[in-house]
């Protein structure tokens, strides 16, 4: 999810000025929200169709870059800097006076203290992206640089590298997944227990919107109430094998409230658990740990519902079962689909929507023709994610697979649909090469405001592909204005269009008149 999110996130830019010598590339990189020049940006220059870079440049202290002696041709340029969203653009012939805008990632920082104002040792803090409608929050499955951290000795944290989007913040402490996953064990802290707290509260997490360069502050005061013990036994546990148990709050299952390991006799004990309604999950045997517990071959799973309130819970019994094997199949969402629209096979990722403290995510291949099976699935709720669909195909709905209760065992069909595209022409100008065209999704319900930029050819033609059907805003912008207005924020100067699935949307876009203020 994280990777897809990044690749979609804002690609911004840019003005092209002048038609200078074809073999010289010169430009300037600025920060999108401040217009300040950006030093130490890597500028990767690819000639289209050539794998090896034509040049790998770096901006100087004034944000400028240059390369000479490059052959004429079509180029793709990427500008990268840590903590900024990568920009990429295509162009025919190299330019001088090129301007590239980079969007700075967001920061959420703060402090995690207890009731006495003391820092909470070892607390982990997560930035969690706003999910699609109808799905629950889940932490990044790939712990991106900065999106997960531990507090320092003063209880301070700093989450950074957050690309445009909306984020909630959560802290987990005590016998947490992070502690078990990094040290193979953990313990509840005296007087504090174990738990998960979203900002400002678990029932209604606040979302912080990042469009570029924002720095938010979220301070946590962890004040537990009524801490209880939960003890019990995992059935069928063989001597010498250890299982990990996770208590997840039904309200926010993205992070486990507490984690425990079985003793040799299968018994377990959670200490310092607050009242609440929980799912208690068990998985194992554990063969190692690295972020989360690593399950050995032929793992067993258990899951029960558990209420904690007003006292210790004793004698809990968790029955175990083998992992499930489920078949998957691709199907067209809307009747017949033109051959070649979607690939015959795609990559399937099943990402758990609950934190079991162990690696229960699974993946496999999925195709239209034959059912493909995925084995060793836990009785968990999974999100179904497809990748490798190509530019003309997309997954219209975020699908969920719920194995937590009874499951009929039928193959799961995953819908795919043809993606939309735009074939456009810029009109009303004799020099279309002086313009750039930006496309912004108009109906993004949260998530990144993904911007794509295209440069018209000498006939004014431009194209966008691989578009999720829906509403978009499109705008042509004169090169020289690149530094004056941000693509993302500027709603007034764009027009709204509706993109249908399948056949390309034809569009004639008038070139804007010169800016009278310029």
């Amino acid at each position, binding site marked *: 999810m994280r990777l897809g999110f990044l690749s979609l996130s804002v690609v911004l830019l840019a003005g092209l000025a002048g038609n200078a010598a074809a073999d010289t590339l010169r430009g300037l990189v600025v920060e999108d929200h401040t217009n300040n020049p950006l*030093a*130490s940006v*890597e500028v990767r220059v*690819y000639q289209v169709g050539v*794998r*090896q*870079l*034509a*040049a*790998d*440049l*770096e901006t*100087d*202290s004034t944000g400028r870059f240059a*390369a000479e002696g490059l052959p004429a041709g079509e180029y793709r340029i990427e500008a990268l800097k*840590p*903590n900024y969203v990568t920009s990429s653009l295509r162009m025919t012939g190299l330019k001088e006076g090129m301007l590239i805008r980079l969007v700075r*990632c967001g*920061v959420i920082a703060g402090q995690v203290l207890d009731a006495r104002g003391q820092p*909470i*040792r*070892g*607390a982990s803090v997560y930035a969690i992206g706003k999910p699609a409608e109808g799905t629950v929050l889940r932490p990044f*499955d*790939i*712990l991106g*640089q*900065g999106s997960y951290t*531990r507090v*320092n*000795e003063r209880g301070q944290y*700093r989450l*950074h*590298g957050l690309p445009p989007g909306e984020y909630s913040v959560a802290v987990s*402490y*005590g016998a947490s997944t992070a*502690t078990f996953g*990094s*040290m193979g*064990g*953990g*313990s509840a*802290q*005296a007087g504090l227990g174990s738990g998960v707290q979203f900002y400002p509260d678990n029932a209604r997490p606040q979302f912080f919107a990042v469009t570029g360069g924002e720095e938010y502050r979220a301070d946590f005061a962890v004040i537990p109430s009524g801490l209880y013990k939960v003890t019990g036994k995992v059935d069928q546990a063989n001597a010498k094998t250890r299982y990990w148990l996770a208590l997840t709050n039904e309200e926010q299952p993205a992070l486990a409230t507490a984690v425990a390991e079985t003793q040799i006799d299968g018994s377990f004990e959670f200490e310092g658990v607050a009242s609440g309604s929980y799912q208690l999950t068990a998985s194992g045997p554990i063969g*190692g*740990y*690295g*972020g*989360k517990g*690593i399950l050995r071959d032929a793992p067993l799973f258990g899951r029960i519902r558990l209420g904690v309130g007003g006292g210790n819970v004793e004698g809990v019994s968790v029955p175990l079962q083998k992992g499930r094997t489920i078949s998957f199949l691709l199907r067209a969402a809307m009747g017949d689909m033109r051959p070649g629209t979607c690939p015959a096979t795609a990559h399937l990722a099943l990402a758990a929507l609950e934190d079991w403290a162990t*690696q229960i995510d699974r993946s496999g291949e999925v195709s239209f023709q034959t059912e493909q099976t995925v084995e060793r699935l836990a009785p968990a709720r999974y999100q179904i994610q497809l990748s490798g669909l190509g530019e003309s195909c997309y997954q219209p709905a975020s699908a969920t697979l719920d194995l937590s209760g009874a499951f009929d065992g039928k193959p799961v069909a995953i819908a795919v649909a043809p993606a939309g595209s735009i074939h456009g022409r810029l009109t009303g100008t004799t020099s279309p090469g002086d313009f750039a065209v930006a496309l912004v999704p108009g109906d993004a319900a949260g998530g990144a405001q993904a911007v794509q930029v295209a440069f018209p050819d000498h006939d004014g033609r431009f194209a966008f592909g691989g578009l999720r059907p829906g509403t978009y805003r499109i705008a042509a912008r004169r090169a020289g204005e690149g530094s004056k207005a941000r693509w993302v924020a500027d709603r007034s100067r764009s027009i709204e269009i509706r993109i249908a699935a399948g056949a390309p949307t034809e569009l004639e876009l008038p070139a804007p008149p010169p800016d009278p203020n310029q």
Partner: protein
Amino acid sequence: MTQKLLQFVLVLSFLLPMAMGQAQDPNAPKGPAPGSIRGTVTDAGSGAPMPEAEVYVNNTTPQMSTVTDTQGHYQLRGLEARRYRVTANAPSANGRNGFGPSQTRQVELLPGQDLDGFDFHIVLPGQISGRVVDQNKEPVPGIAVYLVVREYVAGALRAVFTNLAITDDQGEYHLGRVAAGRSYMVMAQRLTRRLDAVSDAPADPRLRRPAVVPTFYPNSRSMDGAEMLVLRSGEQREGIDIRLVRSPAYCLDGIVEGGSGPANLRFEIGDTQPANGTSGNGGFYSSLPGGTPGPDGKVRICDLHPGDYAFGVQEFAKESLGSAPYYGSVPVTIADRDLQNVRVSARPRVPLAGEVVWDGPAPDTPLDTKLAVELQAITRTERGNFESAVPGQFAIEGGLLIDEFGLRFSRVPAGLYIKDVTYGGHSILYGSLKLGTAVGDAALRIVVARDGGTASARVTDKDGNAVPECAIVLLPASASNEATLAAALTTGRTDLRGTWTSAPLAPGKYYVLATNDAIDKSQETIAKLWRARTGAQELEITANGSAAVTLVPRGLE
């Protein structure tokens, strides 16, 4: 992902047993009235009381433990009269009990004794923080900042990583687990984990982005220019800012081969020094930049600064994490141009066998205890071990990957000492085993001798009172340099009566001293011990003899 994380940072440390159970032992046998121990746990640096520290006795079943109160006080009750080892363990930085800094003391408890004032002064690790900037004074996020020690390992002075931090969006880093009183260097380097088989860096070096040279605080490209940092207990050292050094970037074109084919291989490249490995009482291993080669085994690695590298290749066993059936490595030096046609081959494990022999005539009755030996690769987690009868022949089951190893004798039968170890006819007693380098006879030969003498020391203060828990160091006079001294020295610790007796040692002249300073194999400590030979007491250990000495503790200068 999991596997990557696991490979990325694998920190081995000697973990203390977790404390279990409660302070009262309901099954304690009835007899004389039980005694108790109480005292205070404080921070050795500031003297501040330490709450929530766990205090436990190591050798009771079930283990007895308690936790200090807000004043740092503790009390262990219900203890029968005998000798105990008591450990105080501070909470670790990440909140896990049993994993923090600790101190262990010995005590002899008399029947019914209520011992008071049995205090602990725990030396806390410090923290180093700072900011990494580049030539434009821009903070650089995502840079790896390493804590580095220089320590003698297997007969050579080596620079070894001990911890790693990564800079945040402001270029700031925080390095924890900095042992107080030890000398450290801090080094910053670009963090690369995954390499493409064939780098897309431009063909023309002039069109490449400059490489980042591993930069030692404050801004040195070599260890010799590094400023050494020594922290007090619990010290937070700030402002250790590093300005990265840049250099032209070069590429290496190579072929990796061997194993079960390129698809199953992983190539990697790392600076020769500093490197992964063991230091102090732990080890630090982070995965080197690497990747899977192309189907033809070709690799092109770029963004290399001038310097010395190890270019390696290995194949991981599918069924077990971290264990490799094939490995190979070649040294590579980048000067001022790209390198072409560098080959490295993943080779299978090779057998290692040998014999343990007597120096001189064998005893009349055969020994019933075996000699146990461990081998640990210097820069990798690869290890092997064997046991051998004395005399007898041995072989390491499954063989070893071709690499450089340090040897450790984990069990030597009573009354014996190791007189020599040879490989390919050369002594490696104070050096390392470079597997595969033996010409001709590739057997490991361990010579044990029975003519060792013992040294015994009694340590007193200037008033003649016994000094318990004091370090004793025996330095062979035959050690001709610091590296050999580091490998050949013998250490011990006095008991509650202030005495210590060595295991059998090779006859000869020794320097002996007692000190309350920490003894380790760091460059600084060994240099101090080298100098301390002047003015140290001399001790002649004769064959089968025993030499005694009385010492007063001294500081190392």
